[in-house]
């Protein structure tokens, strides 16, 4: 395996046992069925597919928040299963969909952003300077440091979530629908911020989205998922120009904008 592969997943499978009720036999539902992927260093892997196709489950497994039923995740060639939680946290960080749910409502912004450093045992004085740095980098005015998430706008909250994810300088950031809970006008700002930060800090992203316009905008490679399986995995431009499967074609057809790539429309794929 070449050196420029940061993260790879081998044959990931995740089954959930669903109880049908008392006395009935539990059913097994497979959310992810044998997915393999490679994320190149400095690249952006977009994972698309409709709701319920296993994108978020896969993201949780990549983050180490959920365990795969079978298969393994390798980070820089090392298996993640044996990795200590603090080591893993230094390499991989998440950005979640809804900043109204991903920030603790009882904590002030500076405490939220500083959490990964506090967990890592960084001295309090250094945490304060690095939080200030990070707030500046993510476009948050310093006067917001002492406020609670409830006093901020959606866009500001997502900036806080981004600042928290990046403060420990991870190599890989897994963004699970980072813009779909935001206003359309804010979505572009957040995406541009993510792009700028990637260039500035040399980050690698796994970007999960059902919004193809978002993926086309920033992903270098796209993986299409359906029913827990990989439908296709190709460079972005190639995939958008010549979709390799009927399912991908269907996804592309459901984009509502007249000119794909010009705007950032909110596509409700599952409603179609």
């Amino acid at each position, binding site marked *: 395996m070449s050196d420029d592969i940061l993260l790879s997943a081998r044959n990931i499978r995740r089954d959930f046992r669903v109880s049908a009720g008392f006395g009935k036999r539990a059913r097994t539902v497979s959310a992810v069925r044998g997915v393999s992927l490679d994320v190149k260093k400095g690249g952006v892997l977009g994972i698309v597919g409709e*709701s319920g196709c296993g994108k978020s489950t896969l993201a949780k497994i990549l983050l180490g928040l959920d365990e795969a039923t079978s298969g393994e995740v390798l980070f820089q060639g090392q298996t993640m299963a044996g990795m200590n939680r603090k080591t893993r946290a230094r390499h991989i960080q*998440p950005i*979640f969909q809804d900043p109204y749910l*991903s920030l603790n*409502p009882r904590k002030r912004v500076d405490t939220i952003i500083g959490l990964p450093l506090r*967990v890592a045992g960084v001295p309090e004085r250094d945490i304060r300077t690095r939080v200030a740095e990070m707030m500046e980098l993510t476009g948050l005015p310093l006067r917001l440091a002492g406020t*609670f998430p409830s006093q901020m706008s959606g866009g500001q909250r997502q900036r806080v979530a981004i600042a*928290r994810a990046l403060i420990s300088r991870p190599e890989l950031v897994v963004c699970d629908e980072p813009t779909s809970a935001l206003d359309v006008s804010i979505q572009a700002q957040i995406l541009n911020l993510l792009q700028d930060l990637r260039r500035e800090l040399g980050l690698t992203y796994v970007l999960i989205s059902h919004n193809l316009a978002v993926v086309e905008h920033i992903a270098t490679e796209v993986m299409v998922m359906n029913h827990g399986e990989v439908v296709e995995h190709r460079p972005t431009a190639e995939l958008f120009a010549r979709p390799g499967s009927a399912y991908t074609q269907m996804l592309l057809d459901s984009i509502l904008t007249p000119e794909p790539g010009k705007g950032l429309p909110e596509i409700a794929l599952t409603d179609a």
Partner: protein
Amino acid sequence: MTATDISPQAAPAIEAAPRPASDIWRRGRRHTGLLIGGGLVLMIVLIALLAPLLAPHDPYLQDLNNRLVSPIWGEGGSWAHPLGTDALGRDYLSRLLYGARISLLIGFGATAIAGVIGTTMGVLAGYFGGRIDFIVSFIVNVRLALPAMLVALVVVALVGGSLNVVIWTLGFLVWDRFAVVMRAATQQIRSLDYLSAARAAGASVGRILLTEVMPNVLGALIVVATLEIAQAILFEAALSFLGLGVQPPTPSWGLMISEGKSHMFFRPWVIALPGAALFILVLAINLLGDGIRDVTATEGRT
């Protein structure tokens, strides 16, 4: 996908969103029940603390020449004993003032013990779910199936009644509501993304429970605690009335009612006074708890 698909995700966010402190303060000042309850509790706490300064007599000093003197509004009452004396000639007002100490001590002591036990079990069950939840639920059910009064009577009868024994016994008996409420409150937030974010940041389970979960279930904890304090105080009064709680000559309100019961037909005040004191304290604590719930609860649930 319809609106109902979205609501389970949206609901906890709204519920979990705290009001700014100033907002709670503003609502609190307009809440009559909270003000009355809080004022009365504060007053009784002050009385308990300042009992040695406020009491006109030694609550333990017997004066057999002045037994069962009426309060000032009764026949033969005087300012020497504003609320009369008991069957052993002890000043009733002084005993009532000192009795506030016992009631509050037991109320707060037993609730603190119960709170630690119940909250630990409830939060663990709510956070981990699965097997731990099953075990905790089983223990809670066992506890609920036990008649608390009977267990308390047996323990006190075996070990002997004293203030400490009563506090520990009650503490080990009234934790069930803490466990049930904390479990439900924790379940509500366990799958929210800020806990996932803390996990992804490498935080230990202990840190997540203490710094991420606890601040968000504290409101419910305070409300349960106030209710349990009232419960424990009544429990102590009942135990003492049965002669198995706090032992004489300690001035406990329940014990005073018990000691006065043979005189209740001719001198009803000997049980009416400690009874009224208990009533006021329990009412005040309940008003305070209801008030805190109203002020900190979400919109539309007042």
